[in-house]
């Protein structure tokens, strides 16, 4: 199993890399224009600690640009595109610290719906998501200390018309304003995914704040009634649907982290060039130059590793485990790199870096938030090892 095209496979890899880049150039330009920084960083700063923590008008703008329907099939109102396109958008989200929960709603929750098997529900919900009229959230995690995607304690007990769901979910990103929740539960015959509209979920919702100031929800489910026709995916499909949505969210989140890295580095280099001490710009001191180069190298690694992963994803015969390994690989890389870059960036800004007024701290907190969401670097290296390193199983 290949985790990346090695140089001996470079012949297959190189042309697809170049083609991919050209195909995405237009989208990249449009995202760049939208994400032109100052406005969004200011906006996000002001929305910290509030709910829903983002701007519904901006959400609608994103819908109009087609962003929200990127990965939704065309017959359901989307563009029928893939991770490569979503990653371009993700990078813009991270670069400009956009507060809108695009990845959580579109890739994670939206993905679970798309890869599920309930066509009627898809027809009802996905066009609305693409048009910006419906914001879903995925509630999978149950334990603050442990992240188990497929082993859940939340139970769905059979009733006359469906199931009754009881359990507790935590850290639901995008849950603070969701119109409905995709919930994973152990059903009568195995793992299943259900749709719970906001009204039914509301009594059990409570909120916390993420390190970057955005809200996150906990969801207590106490015998919530869900009809059969609200089951998104049953045993046999649920695990694969959930895993794929999870992996794609990992990849797009990695792209967000790349955007965070890129902008944090730009800000820091500007500072090094302009801050004068001892009669010189501090960027002329070799210690800081070498440190900046090392951060630049980290950003470049993320960029090219992400390109490599996205290129591998274009294989039409890609196996589930390979996608998961690729997703964990890139998440681990971008998590490590972004924490290092933003940490060092604070240091290189001196006292200004420690002030809330300076934007660089916002980048650090977004890096922390996204690095930890869906599992941090160590979790994903372990996941990668389990999936990809055959020598360990021998």
């Amino acid at each position: 199993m290949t985790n990346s095209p090695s140089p001996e496979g470079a012949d297959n890899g190189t042309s697809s890399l170049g083609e991919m880049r050209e195909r995405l150039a237009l989208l990249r330009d449009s995202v760049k224009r939208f994400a032109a920084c100052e406005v969004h960083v200011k906006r996000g700063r002001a929305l910290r600690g509030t709910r829903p923590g983002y701007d519904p008008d901006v959400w609608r703008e994103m819908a109009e640009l087609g962003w929200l329907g990127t990965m939704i099939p065309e017959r359901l109102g989307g563009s029928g595109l893939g991770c490569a396109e979503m990653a371009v958008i993700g990078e813009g989200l991270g670069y400009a610290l956009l507060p809108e929960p695009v990845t959580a709603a579109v890739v994670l929750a939206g993905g679970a719906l798309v890869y599920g098997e309930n066509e009627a529900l898809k027809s009802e919900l996905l066009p609305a998501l693409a048009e910006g009229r419906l914001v879903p959230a995925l509630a999978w995690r149950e334990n603050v200390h442990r992240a188990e995607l497929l082993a859940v304690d939340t139970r769905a007990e059979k009733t006359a018309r469906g199931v009754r769901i009881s359990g507790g979910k935590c850290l639901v990103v995008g849950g603070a304003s969701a119109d409905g929740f995709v919930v994973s539960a152990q059903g009568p015959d195995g793992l299943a995914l259900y749709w719970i509209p906001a009204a039914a979920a509301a009594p059990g919702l409570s909120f916390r704040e993420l390190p970057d100031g955005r809200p996150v929800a906990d969801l207590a489910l106490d015998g919530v009634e869900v009809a059969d026709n609200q089951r998104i995916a049953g045993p046999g499909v649920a695990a694969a649907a959930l895993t794929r949505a999870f992996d794609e969210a990992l990849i797009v989140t990695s792209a967000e982290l790349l955007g965070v890295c890129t902008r944090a580095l730009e800000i820091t280099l500007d500072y090094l060039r302009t801050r004068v001490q001892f009669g010189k710009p501090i960027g002329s001191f070799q210690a800081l130059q070498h440190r900046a180069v090392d951060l630049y190298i980290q950003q470049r690694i993320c960029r090219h590793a992400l390109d490599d992963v996205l290129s591998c994803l274009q294989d039409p015969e890609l196996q589930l485990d390979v996608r998961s390994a690729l997703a964990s690989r890139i998440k681990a890389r971008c998590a490590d790199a972004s924490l290092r870059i933003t940490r060092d960036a604070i240091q290189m800004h001196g006292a200004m870096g420690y002030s809330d007024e300076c934007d660089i701290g916002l980048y650090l907190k977004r890096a922390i938030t996204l690095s930890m969401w869906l599992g941090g670097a160590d979790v994903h290296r372990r996941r990668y090892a389990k999936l990809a390193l055959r020598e360990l199983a021998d």
Partner: protein
Amino acid sequence: MNDDDFRMEVRQFIEKNYPTELRFMPRRPRWREIKPWVMQLIEKGWSAPHWPTEYGGMGLSPGKLLIFMDEQERWGVARAQDQGVVQLGPIVIRYGTEEQKRTLLPKMRTYETIWCQGYSEPNAGSDLASLATVALIEGDDFVINGRKIWTSSAMDATHFYLLVRTDKTAKKQQGISFLLVDMKTPGITVRGIKNISGSTEFCEVTLDNVRTPRRNMVGELNQGWTVAKGLLGFERINSGSPRRAAFAFNRLEALARERGLFKDAGFVERYTQLHLDVADLKAVYLHFADLMTRGETLGADLSILKILSLETYQRITEFMLEASGDLGLTVHAGGDEEGVDALTPFLVARSGTIAAGTTEIQRNITAKHVLNLPV
């Protein structure tokens, strides 16, 4: 011929003809060891892959050059003493007179002349432009006095190309010339320098009133710095190839099997990290290889590949040494004991971040020319 077919042709030739005992050598081979293989390449017309065909080269495109290099590295083909063909040949092709091309290139390509490079000096390493080996004009000759150091494989060379100072009054780079010298010329002393990994591949070359005809200057007087500066794209990318790291990682895996280390969770964690480091290094290499294959110029940011590639290689050998535990005490540098040798790769890897531009210099270059930080 398309790339895939070319790759197969190269692969088959290498697998059929390259001596098995010379695969993945931990050190540079001596000429007597590698000569039979080089003779086969010459006979095939493959000894100068990047030279234009009019000079007997293969005239390969950048993409095919990469493939040619890649296949050699994949099989662990050792680099012969090829500085003549790789460095001097293109220099002569670009800056040489017609007579120089006529007299020098054919023998260079067939290894009838074997060249070594004299750039560094005891007091001119990173600061090469401060070199002090002097060449004075006397009639039809240059008379050279000075010392060169870290000259690879000078003991096997028949000829020598070097940078000398021909104008002490000019600014450093402006007073340097590029000369060619026959190693049999009186006044040349070659002393091998044993290195910490146990092999002797670098030499000190002392020049004591060594005469070389003026026609052995390549390029104009005092233009030597410009002549020597241009390093080929594929040579630059080659120094950043992920193969060293990938090969070292394979040895780490072999060591792990030998010592049952996969049962240790702590080992597995660091092993996984290094595995991912190699995978992501390959992705960075792929970016530059892709640029090269599409015929684009490689910019100053190529330095990051060299830094990353050699530091990753070092990290793997460092971990391997650590993981070899007491076993590491039984294998001394350059020895032939059984078991995975973790010591020699570790020592050899030390030179990677020093030779051909230290990683500190690479960082200086990146800071100035890529990040536009002020000097």
